[in-house]
């Protein structure tokens, strides 16, 4: 402790003498011991070690301060040779700087001495190489350092090294306003051939729109004429073009990769350590925003190559520089170039002064601009996108033009991007819709299949009368003649189409509840009709497909998946519409060999019930006549289906009780002729082909010794056990169905369920 006290003394004296150090020194000292005291109180053992390392730290700190004091006092030329004091202090500074970095004050002292010309060049260069900030660099030190350049006391190589240091450390300078004021000074240094590449880089980092002036443009163009096509000049010029296209024009060659010499290399490792240390707080390095040419990968005629336009500022304001009226200043000169938009926070800060890119198609690759599109209500945005996308789709479609066939991959990628954008914006593009209507009749059902079918799911909700001839008919043709997997993917995308429409409807309901936003001029009946037509269409193709594919389980899964959305339309999407599946779907599912389908059907019927009950209750509560009432046909159909299901699965009376005209009711005489024993219960939950597997497993577990597999043992109490067993096997749909529908049936008609349960 004593030693520590002693160690403090020189510091204090130092502090008195050099007020410039005071800020960070006080910080060091007051925080240092305090935490130590706290620790010593808690952990006695560690105290000693801690104080030892602290001592070491303090002593190096002392050395550093001594060194800094030494350098600060340098007023005249000091040679390096045989100057042990200088060498010692230099070594100290290098050591500590590389380990921990230097404080802003320390940097200030060293920068001053390095550029003052008092020291030998080798010393200057060693100092500059170890100027690594611990946190930030004060802008004022940079400004005073630059002022040394004006005096011209330091050599060319030192100036060059300083510029490289400035470029490498640019992001660590705390403010840049005063540095911007020095723009003209740096610009003048361009004439120095050696410094030019680095000055260009620095100017590139400093340039703002207001820095671009006609005389500077002229100077740069002259310089380029003198020096030739130097990449650093090209880069600076293209930035000038970005800000002021009305003053300068340049097209960068396609091959160019790097524009600036690497300035960071000397400090790279050190910078990385600082970045790691200040994680999150230090700014990310400024990205180059040069618009390079698109690589022309192959020889194709102009404009026949699929290129998403690059995001570039709208240059279509040629009057900007000439007629400077107030409106212009407000609208244009303040605008934020889209090329500089990289982060979401930038978007939020510049939302009021952001301009859309010159080619709207470029937003497809820029999620930030897609966010922005969502905030702006401007018809022209959509119209520009509409024309661009419509033409691109038409020109690149691989089955319109024979020439395009070899570029299928590119077209696929494009369709993928369009689809992703639609998902992002949660709405379909009309140009896509028209493209589908035009192209589907010519489509072979194979080329770009996943992409095309996904686009189908984003067709905007519109009157079905136009969809029917352009979408449904060609799609149905392909559907019936293509493979099982194609059928399933079509059903999948139609399900998503339905969900997108329903989601859109829910969103509209939300907006209508907000009186400020005027609802779109849509009628509910139009919407209900379109949705109903789509469901009918899917019902129709599903019925046919099941027959064509011999009731394939895989297909049935996708069909029932569609109806899982349909059965919940009323409660989940608040749309007064409930449509039952056609018998061509219902009966194959009910008599399916697969427990998955049966379980799915049970769940769907349970949801239908919940929706219908809710609708009925709402009708009773709101005594006013509702605009939309479910037709009695829906209830009737539901009841017919439920009779058939309960008859099948529960009361073993399917062949008698089914009253659906297309149902499975059979004459007892006919049944007799089949000579099947116990015909009546052949579809109940024990004997149903989808469930017999479970029944067998249940019997084996309940009566391990009985090998006869007597299904008739499952009755009474065991019937309930068996049910529990089925539920445990994951047949949750069956559980929901039985618990909701059977109990009700058993209450209403005791005899029906009584028969079985006894």
């Amino acid at each position, binding site marked *: 402790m004593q030693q520590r006290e002693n160690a403090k003394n020189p510091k204090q004296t130092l502090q008195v003498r050099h007020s410039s150090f005071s800020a960070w020194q006080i910080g060091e000292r007051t925080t240092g011991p305090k935490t130590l005291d706290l620790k010593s109180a808690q952990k006695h053992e560690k105290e000693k070690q801690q104080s030892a390392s602290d001592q070491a730290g303090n002593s190096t700190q002392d050395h550093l301060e001594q060194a800094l004091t030494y350098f600060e006092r340098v007023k005249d030329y000091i040679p390096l040779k045989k100057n042990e004091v200088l060498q010692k202090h230099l070594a100290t500074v290098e050591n500590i700087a590389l380990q921990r970095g230097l404080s802003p004050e320390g940097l200030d002292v060293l920068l001053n001495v390095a550029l003052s010309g008092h020291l030998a060049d080798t010393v200057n260069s060693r100092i500059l190489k170890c100027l690594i900030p611990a946190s930030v660099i004060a802008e004022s030190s940079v400004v005073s350092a630059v002022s040394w350049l004006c005096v011209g006391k330091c050599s060319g190589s030192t100036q060059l090294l300083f510029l490289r240091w400035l470029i490498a450390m640019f992001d660590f300078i705390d403010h840049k306003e005063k540095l911007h004021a020095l723009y003209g000074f740096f610009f003048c240094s361009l004439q120095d051939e050696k410094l030019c590449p680095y000055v260009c880089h620095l100017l590139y980092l400093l340039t703002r729109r207001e820095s671009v002036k006609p005389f500077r*443009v*002229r100077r740069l*163009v002259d310089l*380029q004429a003198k020096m030739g*096509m130097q990449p650093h*000049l*090209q880069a600076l*010029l*293209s930035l000038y073009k970005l800000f002021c*296209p*009305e*003053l*300068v*024009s*340049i*097209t960068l060659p*396609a091959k160019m990769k790097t524009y600036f010499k690497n300035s960071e290399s000397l400090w790279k490792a050190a910078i990385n350590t600082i970045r790691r240390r200040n994680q999150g707080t230090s700014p990310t390095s400024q990205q180059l925003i040069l618009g390079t040419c698109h690589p022309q990968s192959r020889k194709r*005629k*102009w*404009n026949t190559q699929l290129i998403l*336009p690059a995001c570039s500022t709208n*240059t*279509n304001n*040629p*009057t900007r520089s000439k007629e400077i009226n107030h409106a212009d200043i407000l609208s244009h000169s303040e605008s934020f170039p889209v090329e500089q938009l990289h982060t979401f926070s930038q978007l939020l800060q510049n939302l009021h002064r952001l301009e859309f890119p*010159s080619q*709207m198609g470029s937003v497809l690759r820029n999620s930030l601009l897609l966010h922005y599109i969502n905030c702006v209500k401007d*018809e*022209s945005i*959509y*119209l*520009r996108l*509409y*024309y*661009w996308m*419509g*033409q691109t789709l*038409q020109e690149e479609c691989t089955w319109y*033009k024979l020439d395009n066939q070899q570029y299928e991959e590119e077209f696929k990628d494009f369709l993928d991007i369009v689809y992703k954008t639609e998902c992002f914006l949660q*709405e379909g593009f*009309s140009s896509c819709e028209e493209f589908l209507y*035009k*192209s589907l*009749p*010519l489509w072979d059902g194979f080329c770009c299949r996943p992409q095309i079918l996904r686009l189908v799911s984003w067709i*905007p*909700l*519109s*009157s079905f009368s*136009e969809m029917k*001839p*352009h979408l449904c008919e*060609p799609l149905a*043709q392909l559907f*019936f003649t293509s493979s099982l997997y194609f059928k399933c993917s079509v059903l999948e995308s139609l399900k998503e189409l339905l969900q997108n*429409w329903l989601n*859109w409807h829910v969103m509209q309901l939300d907006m209508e509840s907000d009186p400020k936003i005027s609802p779109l*001029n849509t009628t509910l009946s*139009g*919407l209900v009709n379109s949705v109903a037509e789509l469901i009918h269409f899917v019902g129709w193709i599903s019925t046919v497909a099941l027959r064509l594919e011999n009731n394939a389980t895989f297909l049935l899964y996708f069909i029932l998946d569609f109806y899982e959305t349909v059965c919940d339309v009323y409660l989940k999407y608040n749309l007064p519409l409930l449509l039952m599946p056609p018998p061509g779907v219902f009966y194959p599912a009910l008599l399916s060999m697969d427990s998955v389908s049966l379980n799915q059907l049970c769940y769907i019927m349970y949801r239908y019930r919940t929706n219908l009950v809710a609708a009925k209750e709402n009708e009773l509560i709101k005594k006013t006549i509702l605009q939309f009432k479910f037709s009695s046909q829906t209830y009737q159909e539901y009841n017919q289906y439920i009779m058939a299901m309960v008859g099948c699965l529960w009361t073993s009376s399917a062949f008698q009780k089914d009253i659906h005209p297309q149902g499975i009711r059979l004459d007892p005489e006919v049944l007799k002729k089949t000579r099947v024993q116990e015909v009546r219960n052949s579809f109940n939950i024990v004997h149903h082909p989808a469930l017999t597997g479970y029944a067998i497993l249940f019997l084996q577990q309940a009566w391990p010794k009985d090998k006869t597999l007597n299904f008739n043992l499952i009755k009474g109490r065991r019937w309930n056990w068996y049910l529990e067993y089925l539920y445990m096997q994951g047949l949750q749909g069956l559980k929901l169905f039985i618990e909701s529908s059977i109990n009700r049936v058993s209450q209403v008609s005791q005899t029906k369920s009584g028969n079985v349960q006894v």
Partner: protein
Amino acid sequence: MILAERARAESAMRRSGRPSLWRRQDVDTPDSGGMTRLGRKTAETGINFTNTTRFSRGLTFTRTHTLCGQSPTRRIIPQTSLLQENADPQKIAFLLRKQWTLYSVTPMYKFSYGNLKEYSRLLSAFVATEKQKGLAVEVGNDLGIKVILSTLLGLRGTDQDQAAILVQIALRSQLPFENAEDKVVWSGWFCCISGDDLSESVPEDFTCLSLFLANGAESYTAIVGSWFQKTFDCYFSRLTISPLNLAWMAAMWTGCKVDSYMAATELVFSVPCIPQSLDISYAIHPEDAKALWDTVQKTPGEVTQEEVNLFMDCLYSHFYRHFKIHLSATRLVKVSTSIASAHCDGNIKILHSKHLIGVLTLLTELAISQIQ
């Protein structure tokens, strides 16, 4: 020809084994002119979008066009096919007797006729920098290359049509004389004749100049086109002409009154299925062709699809009588008359200033149907 296509389509259907649910527009071969050929002859089945309520945010403008770019079954031959009085005869003469490559252009965003000079400056600099990549150019400097944008007066079908724009690229003359003229190396022009359907349906910010014609090296077309695409967010696509539309042109142009016939009416057919394409040229004396057309046309000033079909069928049967070749089984690729000549690749040469507007009206219609 229609019959033949139907037969071809039917045989294609049989091969693919699809059910016979097809409609005519379902089975167009992809190479026969692309989408503009869709739904040909079935205009009555076209769905009109005008009164349809859209359930989509964003595009609130009503779609006035019919879907699938159906071409009309009836076309009116414009009565006022004369150029307007303020037309500059020198400039009009410049447009004639040159081979132009056709493009369709989507409406241009924020194009302003008041800024043509400024556009010339910017485009000059752009062309200069594109020609020498990597070298910066100060806008407005003397660059040895000069682009001039100017309006083509008098080139209008209706009063609503936007003024046509001429773009020319000129190289500074290498000759040392004071008054040595710059050499025009490339020219192109935008126009939209009787394109009211489109221009009335787009907001004010957009300028409809849907037809673009270029003459000169394609590299220049690419540079100028790219600049327009970048600056006005429009889209250029090549405008090809389907055999059906070529037949329309053959009929319509044959029917035009011309004081003196300069060339024979010639139809070029290409025979498919042969590795080396075989072209059949069918030349008719223009007066004979006109006489045939006069017997076909029922109402003067109006042409119908049936009349066009009948006219072509007559020519085909005449050819068959002599050469035993069914031209209906081949593909019409080029039509040239005294009025103009057109190639299916999208090249056109207009010969008669009197019929300039008439030819451009039809081309504008085709361009608009391609961009909608």
